[in-house]
């Protein structure tokens, strides 16, 4: 039977049985090439992202925004740029972020991100946000196990739920928490999550305390959160690296950083890899159906 195959049939069967290492190599090239030689594709922010951005922009200066950084290094390229952009937006607008995390791998990244933003410099070398004091203008509470119990606890009191911040300083001595004692005193909640916490923030915090909530999640989770967004339970929805790139564009991260921001930088690579996968699906299906037809006609002849 192998001798009877035409060159087209040989090619079809070769493609259908393609060594996966070739696919891996193609993916590798599609990711690295655009990162080395950026294409710089333009994109327009979507309504879901604009809604989240506008809500934060509309807050009065001095308002406290609770940021729950519920992500670890595995989803860092999708969520961390959003966290940085949000912090820049908060400090630029004079908002006071209170940051915590409900995942054990979260504090290291969230703390590093906060320090990076606090250490940001203007082109002339001066600090971008001078005079900010921990416990007055912002707070980083770190990690606490318990998930929904922590959310409920925050509804009662920041100080009892987090007696100390990430550095071990007593929250009871911080002016910020004397003024804003519980979650209900915050003006906004922003959950940046790679895990399933956003849907718990709705009943256990946002609706219970009547505080608006927006969510940034991984692209794979975004589809499941559209019902919450449409129902108004999420005021904004920032999905995946594309959503983060859109938020970066709205905040003006390129001007702030003086270079292409991380999520925007990843857009070219993501575009090329998505094209590769779509092409792979089309090619594989084409040869799959052609081969099935050949096999059927050969079976008929036999």
């Amino acid at each position, binding site marked *: 039977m192998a001798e009877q195959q035409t060159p087209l049939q040989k090619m079809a069967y070769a493609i259908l049985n*393609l060594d996966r290492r070739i*696919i891996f190599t*193609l*993916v*590798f090239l599609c*990711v690295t090439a655009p990162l080395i030689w950026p294409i710089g*594709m*333009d*994109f*327009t922010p979507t309504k879901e992202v604009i809604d989240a951005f506008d809500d934060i922009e509309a807050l009065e200066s001095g308002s406290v925004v609770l940021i729950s950084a519920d992500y*670890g*290094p*595995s*989803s*860092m390229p999708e969520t961390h740029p959003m966290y940085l952009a949000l912090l820049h937006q908060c400090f630029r607008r004079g908002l006071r972020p209170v940051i915590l995390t409900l995942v*054990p*791998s979260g*504090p*290291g990244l969230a*703390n*590093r991100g906060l*320090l990076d933003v606090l250490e940001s410099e203007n082109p002339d070398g001066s600090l971008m946000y001078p005079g900010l004091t921990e416990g007055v203008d912002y707070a980083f509470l770190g990690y*606490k*196990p*318990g*998930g929904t*119990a922590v959310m*409920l*606890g925050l*509804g*009662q*009191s920041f100080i*009892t*739920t987090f007696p100390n911040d990430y*550095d071990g300083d007593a929250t009871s001595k911080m002016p910020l928490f004397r003024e804003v004692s519980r979650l209900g005193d915050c003006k906004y909640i922003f959950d940046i999550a790679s895990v399933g916490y956003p849907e718990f923030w709705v009943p256990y915090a946002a609706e219970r305390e009547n505080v608006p909530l927006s969510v940034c999640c991984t692209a794979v989770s*975004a*589809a*499941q959160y*559209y*019902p919450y967004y*449409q129902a108004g339970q999420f005021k904004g929805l920032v*999905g*995946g690296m*594309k959503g983060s790139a859109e938020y970066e564009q709205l905040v003006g991260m390129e001007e702030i950083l003086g270079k292409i921001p991380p999520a925007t930088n990843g*857009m*070219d690579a*993501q*575009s090329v*890899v*998505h*094209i*590769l*996968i*779509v092409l*792979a*699906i089309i090619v*594989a*299906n084409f040869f*799959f*159906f052609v081969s099935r037809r050949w096999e059927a006609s050969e079976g008929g002849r036999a």
Partner: protein
Amino acid sequence: MNFIRRQLPVVIAFCFGVALWAQYYIPSRASNEALETFTGSWAIILAGCALILGILSAIHHHWTKIRLKRAGFGYSIVTLTCFAIVVLVGWFPIQWPGFAAVTIADGSFFDWIFLNVFVPLDATMFSLLAFFIASAAFRAFRARSFEATALLIAGCIVMLGRVPLGELIAIPGTNLSMTSIAGWLLNNPNTAAYRGILLGVILSQVAISLRILFGIERTYMGGGD
């Protein structure tokens, strides 16, 4: 003994379940204080204990594997060694040579381990997914039936629509681009289907909660009935 193993957990689950359910509908100060006591201390302590239990269970699993020299016990040695190092540098306030800060503060040895070991390893594990998804899509994503074809077409549209390139792929003479079609798919068929799933999940959660409260569902105790 039988009472402690079989009836007491059901009584505790019933009392706490009913109390927390009732609390939600009673907006009084005493009710809120009760919730504060529960969430501010009990629930968080319980969650902390669960974390400790998880750690002890993992240690026991790997230690047993090493002791019995089961296949792959070398990985368990690496796991326990790394665990011990991270606990040592993260828990005890030691000034490690070459590091400015102690314990877990910025610039500490723990911080260095997190940023230079854990972050790249965790990111690498997750990024491998892209390679396997591409390979799986090529091998397994076949339009064998109407449902599979619909899923395949929707998947391709959303994949192209959720990247900047999608804005450039437009239907001539219309305002429709891959991005707008992907947005429609996510906002309409996807949301409708997921809303149905959500309602089903939540109704079954209510049913399961009632079964647990009334002691019908006892699998959480680890036994058959």
